[in-house]
């Protein structure tokens, strides 16, 4: 059980870290949203799943309620985060921001 929690947490943290590095390293607005949208969502999901499992460690009704709440958060993050990323991309397109192509300078 503990090992599973650890694996989940660490993989979540790995994706979050990778996402942060990606935000810094990618060349332009749209490609930066790629790590920001996907990796953050996945990292949060995994980390929260780990926490939900961890709270079931000592099983009781209260602990079950807590992990249910965490599961609810997971669902909402899963809905909200891609929508938000989509909204930002949409705004970028409407503002007339051209995507980066190979050979251009970083923006």
């Amino acid at each position, binding site marked *: 059980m503990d090992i599973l929690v650890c694996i989940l947490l660490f993989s979540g943290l790995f994706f979050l870290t990778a996402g942060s590095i990606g935000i810094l390293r990618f060349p332009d607005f749209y490609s930066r949203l790629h790590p920001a949208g996907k990796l953050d969502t996945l990292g949060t999901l995994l980390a929260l799943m780990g926490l939900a499992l961890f709270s079931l460690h000592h099983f009781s009704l209260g602990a079950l309620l807590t992990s249910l709440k965490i599961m609810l958060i997971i669902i*909402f993050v899963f*809905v*909200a985060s*891609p*929508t938000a990323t*989509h*909204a930002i991309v*949409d705004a970028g397109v*409407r503002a007339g921001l051209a995507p980066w192509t190979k050979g251009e300078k970083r923006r």
Partner: protein
Amino acid sequence: MKIIGLIITIITGAFLVYAAVDFPAWADPNSPASTYLSPYFIENSMKDTSVPNFVTSLLADYRGFDTMFETTVIFTAGLVCFILLRISGGKEPETRHYRHVLTGVTVTLKEGRKIPASEDFERIDDLWTPPDLIIKTGCRLMIPFIQLFALYVIAHGHSSPGGGFQGGVILGASIILLAISHDLRTALERMREKVVAILCPVGVAIYAGTGTLCLLLGLNFLDYSALASVLHVDPISARSHGILMVEIGVGIAVMTTMIWIYNNISSAGKYNQGL
């Protein structure tokens, strides 16, 4: 100006550092702040008000008078934004735009012309852009849950972190989310300006009115134990119920103020289109 700013900043900072040397260390359990008044609140909150969340009992009862003015500050901010920005009685623009909902065809009308009254056309603005389907659906999915959570936060402020301010802000955020994901006109159809502007003082008046009710029942202002005779409970639970009453007032006031400020600032007082 930069050099003057730097000099002033350094002098002030040095003075504050000089004063901080005499302060108790961080997280010191024996500092005067932790030993003089706070033990009273922690140890007697349950006995006095039967509220397990000490912050709530302190906020809405022991120092409820502060909180009443805090709510008034929020109301004032909404009112100031309104009085500064709202352009009332604005003329109708010369051309109006309508959109046929089913086909997406946009119709532009000169002044004086009318379209056949039907459900098929909706009024739009000059800078209107079609709301994105994904965003619309995503937000429509989230808003009911956000509002439900807000009500939970208001109602559960007695025994978990939360209360009127937090819940009110979340409630306001749900309406603002509607305005962002669709457009301001849609949000205004749900919450009309007049409703917002009247509910806001009503919310604060619920707070002040609860206090005044206590005064009329013969005790001091905001002494909720006076409500015991009205609510038919003992004075200690009366305090708990009084706190709930004022939290509801705060929630209403904060929610409407957030919406009010958003409406005014995002449309610069014209109320035609949001961001």
